[in-house]
């Protein structure tokens, strides 16, 4: 495996390249982009990618773009093992063994940071007692505790009902890494546990009972803010300011991944990523996430330029 020598390609061969790009990237004219783009992965990133794809189309892209919301793990699977997809959406960074797998099929994943999610720990708005949790309480809440009163004696002696993203999701991985030191065992052996890749199943479930609790991407909370209550962690609320200044403990990066070879042979993929990186900050708030910080975005742009170096 390993990256092959980039083939010498003439500059400016891509008709979609135009002037007026954002922050050093070449400009994209979607009207001149066609051909299909296959993406799959995180359900957290899904709404963002969906929004970007829609905008890409609205501005004239005439190809086929598919976005499967199957969880980060499965998304990497398709990208690095089956090699079915052009782009993997992920709500966690790629793991070493996934990079290994990708190399096996001659791919070299390139990471593009697209935004930040504040993982939201939520309860139903019928829940009047829970407002804040420490990280330790959080760990207990999602594993060994069986009633709310075990977390805090002042809380009702009612069974905890847990709704968490499925094991294939980046959210699950992130949470178990962040809260359980990468050991999913306690979380999965908890009582009254519901797991789903479908966040609505979680949203509906949490709405359904004052004693339910769950977590998922901030966007899903934002969509249902009228019926859900988000808990602050270690006393810090999930807000733009707290995410930006890094004090919210469950803030996590959102990525898309692609590969140099793919971007070169399927220029529509390069165009889409270019477009994505250029305009994601205009859309990310509307979707319910937070912009990534400028350095991270810039790293992505540089990676793009490096991958496509000499081809346009």
């Amino acid at each position, binding site marked *: 495996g390993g990256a092959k020598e980039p083939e010498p390609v003439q500059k400016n061969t891509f008709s979609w390249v135009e002037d007026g790009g954002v922050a050093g990237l070449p400009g994209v004219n979607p009207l001149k982009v066609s051909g299909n783009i296959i993406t*799959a992965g995180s359900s957290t990133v899904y709404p963002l990618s969906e929004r970007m794809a829609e905008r890409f189309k609205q501005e004239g892209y005439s190809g086929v773009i598919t976005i*499967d919301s*199957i*969880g980060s*793990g*499965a*998304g990497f*699977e*398709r990208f690095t*093992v*089956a090699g079915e997809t052009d782009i993997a959406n992920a709500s966690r960074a790629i793991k070493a063994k996934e990079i290994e797998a990708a190399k096996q099929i001659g791919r070299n994943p390139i990471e593009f940071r697209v935004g930040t999610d504040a993982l939201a720990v939520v309860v139903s708005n019928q829940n009047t007692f829970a407002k804040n949790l420490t990280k330790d309480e959080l760990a207990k809440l999602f594993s060994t505790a069986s009633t709310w009163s075990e977390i805090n004696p002042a809380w009702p002696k009612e069974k905890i*009902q847990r709704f968490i993203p*499925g*094991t*294939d*999701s980046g959210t699950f991985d992130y949470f178990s890494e962040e809260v359980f030191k990468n050991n*999913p*065992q306690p979380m*999965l*052996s908890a009582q*009254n*546990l*519901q*797991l*789903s*890749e*479908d966040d609505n*199943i979680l949203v*509906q*479930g949490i*709405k*359904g*009972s004052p004693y*339910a609790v769950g977590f998922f991407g901030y966007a899903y909370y934002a969509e249902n803010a009228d019926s859900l209550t988000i808990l602050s962690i270690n006393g810090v609320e999930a807000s733009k300011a707290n995410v930006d200044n890094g004090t919210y403990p469950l803030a996590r990066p959102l990525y898309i991944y692609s590969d140099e070879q793919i971007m070169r042979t399927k220029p529509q993929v390069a165009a889409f990523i270019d477009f994505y990186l250029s305009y994601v900050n205009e859309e990310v708030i509307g979707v319910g996430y937070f912009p990534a910080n400028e350095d991270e975005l810039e790293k992505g742009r540089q990676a793009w330029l490096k991958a496509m170096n000499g081809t346009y």
Partner: protein
Amino acid sequence: MLIDTPQFGKKHRLHERIIESVMFLFALFSMLITVGIVVILTRESFLFFSDPKVNLVGFLTGRDWQPMIDQFGFLPLLNATFTTSIIAMLLGIPVGLFVAIYLAEYANDRMRGILKPTLEVLAGIPTIVYGYFALTFMTPLLRSLFGQSRVEIYNTASAGLVIGILVLPMIATMAEDAISSVPKELRLAAYALGGTKIETTFKVVIPAALSGLSATFLLALSRAIGETMVVALAAGAGPKLTANPFKAAETITGYIVRISGGDVSYNSVDYNSIFALGLVLFLITFTLNLVSRKVSTIFHQEYE
């Protein structure tokens, strides 16, 4: 001579032979499907069971199912499957049977003309719609009847009841067939002895139709066990060993569709586990179908 007259000797009708062979191969194809199902399910299940962390005894007796952390006991899934199916049967069998009795013994032609198409419509609605119905109607109904605190938002009762509605038209039409095929003479005999309509129905007609009816019920049970979309939407998404139908629990089919909906990683234990569960499902339903056929042939013999 207008028509050339060949000898009686066998003319080699090659194209007839070819056509017959092709048809025969087509007929064999269905055999191939069964073989395919069995081979695929057993092969992948074999991979599942050859995983060092899995063993058959643990699979059959374990009370926890969470492959991610090496818990491979399928009892919670099986239990939920039977919970939803039994609830479905508790609703579907009596209502379906009574509708069938009404159709066969009471309804006049006009009523039948209205009811049968109604049942057909009900039978033709995609199961996803029933799932949606469970989520948007049955669950809220149960929660307002029995209390929000007692009935979880996802629960096997709601899914089971809606599956009951889903299999109702099938039960009603098949049961009606079974009841209608009881010879008319038996009814006349019962009436001539001074039996009332209900006595005739319950004590003569139904017993005579019993094997046909039990075949129907078994088939309906098999259908309920294999039903997927309703449980995927309404029963819950976490394996749980509970007898309480107001609690969420995941069925075999629910698990398969959840795992494959999140896409299955190649060669992972998750991927193999859905085939192992598929095998269990196939064995259960296959047995029920076979028994059901057996029972209904017994029925036919009785009247010949």
